[in-house]
């Protein structure tokens, strides 16, 4: 049970005390993108994603921490959240462009969503100083995670 609780604490909370993600060392820009319907068809900044890095980001409690809310078909993750649909098969249900938009800013589809916008900095309130004006994911990280999600066909 203790390991369970640690996801929320060590992951999201411990961060502020002991861990400086590399992204924070340099300015992180927001890529410009064009949404078509419910998708962003073109890769952000024309970057290619790496699905191995993507899976790491999804599991990483200091960055993506997706499993705090979602379940996903990954080994050795006993404590996964159930606040959101399972990511199993999401790459079959949604196109790469649809995945990209949901990751960049889910609130464009559902303004009341619980899911954080992973590549947005405007319109946020009371952001802790160390995260201010920084998106959760850089454009490269968005592409990496999209690449991994696209592999989840079933």
């Amino acid at each position, binding site marked *: *049970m*203790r*390991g*369970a*609780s*640690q*996801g*929320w*604490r060590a*992951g*999201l*909370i411990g961060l*502020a005390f002991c861990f400086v993600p590399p992204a924070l060392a340099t300015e992180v820009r927001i890529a410009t993108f064009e949404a078509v319907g419910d998708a962003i068809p073109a890769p952000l900044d024309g970057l290619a994603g790496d699905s191995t890095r993507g899976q790491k980001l999804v599991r990483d409690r200091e960055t993506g921490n997706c*499993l*705090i*809310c979602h379940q996903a078909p990954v080994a050795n993750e006993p*404590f*996964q*959240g*159930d*606040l959101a649909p399972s990511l199993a098969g999401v790459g079959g249900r949604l196109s790469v462009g649809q995945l990209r938009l949901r990751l960049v800013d889910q*609130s464009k589809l559902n303004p009341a969503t*619980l899911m*954080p*916008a992973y590549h947005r900095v405007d319109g*946020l*309130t*009371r*952001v*802790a*100083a160390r*995260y*201010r004006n*920084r998106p*959760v994911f850089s454009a490269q990280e968005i592409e990496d995670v999209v690449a991994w999600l696209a592999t989840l066909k079933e």
Partner: protein
Amino acid sequence: MRSALLALVVLMAGAIAATAETRTSARELLPPELQAQQADDDANPGMLWVTSGQQLWSMPAGANAKSCSECHGDATTSMRGIAARYPAIDAKSGRLMNLEQRINNCRTANMAAAALPYEGEDLLALTAYVAHQSRGLPVSVRIDNAAAPHFEAGRRFYFERQGQLNVSCSQCHDDNVGRRLRGDRISSGLPTAWPAYRLDWQKMGSLHRRLRACSLGVRAEQLDFGSPEYVNLELYLAGRADGHLVETPGLRK
């Protein structure tokens, strides 16, 4: 038309009553052995702080060497029910005070003693001891008159999305009660158990320490212990916990 309107009013009243009744204390979501441990005063580690608060209650302090008991007598009667109606407006200053601030106000104004540091052992112990005298009594704070603007400010804070992750208190503590955030099951975020002993901290902590953990969880600014924003929020949380029983000292993961 009239009957449709009436039906709507009845429906709305039903909805409000239902939410009040279905709010879930974090205690109910604990594994049975931890629930049993909280209920057993010999096993609940928070009782150590209550006991040390009891000692401080009759210990002289300040320039006039007065103790709490000299003015308030036996806490089991004089302090019974007090915590259940805090935060409250202080008649003299017009300020909204939570229990920690009220105790410190007694030290500075009535005892010529220095304020105790927030989150220090002594203030945690005294607060736990005073709050413990209300254990089992229903929360009932005033949210009218001078308290109304504070309650409203707390309500706004509660529903506002915040932090880099852009999540409001309500999205977790209303919309997702009982669900799992990783391994933690989300409760209704009631303030009724505090100060509480958290296994994660290996010690007692104040409600504001818990609020700071929730703020940081969504990567929002952590406000100071006793900050007006958190005291307003505390009043809102107490208002929405109306009728729920005080648990202090709670035991939490």
